[in-house]
């Protein structure tokens, strides 16, 4: 169940669907992802990926961008993290592809 069922192609443009919002809240200690009757606290890696899910860039571009921002991490590893997170969030209806 933890493995995303969705295939995440490099050409997909992930974005937050209506009803899912990423907001900063001081009282709750930082960024939170608000969804239908659910609240998630993204960790630092998830945040880096989520803030790039604007619908304007595709998955390959997000991976390239992260590889540039974090030159210490191998691109393949970044790609796997991105696909797993985006696929998992899409399964939970927290992202649209």
């Amino acid at each position, binding site marked *: *169940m933890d493995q*995303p*069922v*969705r295939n995440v192609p490099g050409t997909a443009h992930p974005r937050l*669907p*209506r*009803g*899912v*919002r990423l*907001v900063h*809240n*001081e*009282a*709750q200690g930082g960024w*939170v992802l*608000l969804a*239908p*009757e659910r*609240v998630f606290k993204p960790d630092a890696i998830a945040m880096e990926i989520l803030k790039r899910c604007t619908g304007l860039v595709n998955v390959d571009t997000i991976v390239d961008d992260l590889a540039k921002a974090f030159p210490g991490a191998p691109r393949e590893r970044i790609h796997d993290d991105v696909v797993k997170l985006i696929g998992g969030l*899409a*399964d*939970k*209806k927290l992202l649209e592809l």
Partner: protein
Amino acid sequence: MLAPVNAPNPLGLLAELTHRCPLGCPYCSNPLELDKRDGELDAANWARVFREAAALGVLQVHLSGGEPGARRDLVEITKAARDAGLYSNLITSAVGITPATLAKLSEAGLDHVQISIQDSEQESADHIAGYKGASARKRALAVEVVKLRLPLTINMVVHRANIARVSDMVDLALSLGAGRVEIAHVQYYGWALKNRAALMPTREQVETAVAEVEALRERHHGRIVIDAVVPDYYARFPKPCVGGWGRRSINVTPAGRVLPCHAAEVIPGLEFWNVREHSLQDIWQNSPAFQAFRGTDWMQEPCRACPQREKDFGGCRCQAFLITGDARAADPVCHLSPHHARIQELANVRVDEPYAYRG
């Protein structure tokens, strides 16, 4: 007495905008004594409550009731929630919300809609709701929600009359375009407690339904999110009710009384403060009702020394009172409660009698 426990930041606000509702569901979680229309908070007061809630750290507001559509100023109230920076969730029976109102709510910034369904079979659904034609209207409004691209949750309350059709009800939610479905076994408070014998499923029915939900989750993974509220009369461990008393959520009644949970008024001797007289922050931090069972200092045995005490918080205070007569007792759902056998006895009382529909 021990010093009060520091209040954490609440996450959710249940705003009961009105107790008025066209439906008569026999498991309604509203109290038997309903707040009257002429005592309801006005939109300006709700707007202030939302701003105060946001300042406290609340992230989501659940616009509920009764039927929130019974409020003529629902659009204004919804806009105020959005203006306060809150994520707004409309919890509706769908009866009393027109497509035109829905479009205005969407424009006002509504984030999510939850529609209840009573059964997958329309005749049974209307019988449970005590309202002819309710089922068709719910389906019609669900279509409008999806048309507006608003996310839709279908909520189904499960009990003896519909427990055999959990799978059909999930199929119905899928066909309506819901992204999420809530399968909520009846919790026995308010009207549900009054109708307990008529609603209570058998242990075998519950076990079948729970296994079915697991299979449905697997089958529909990625297509629809399935959240389930488990039936506690057949459980061995209590639920962490409202995520712990005065820890995560705030409930404001139509008349402005602020409760740690919607059923809290059944517990005698609790002093509830009203948003007309106090700020929400003052109430959250200092009102006697919120302090009463916050933390673990109030606990008795077997909770006091229990390794689960910070996880389930002793279960539900209202249920402890309703079954044992002592709100400080362990929730009798817990197998360690000396009253656990009583819960099992009560679960065995099943009578096919007409529902006492809510007033």
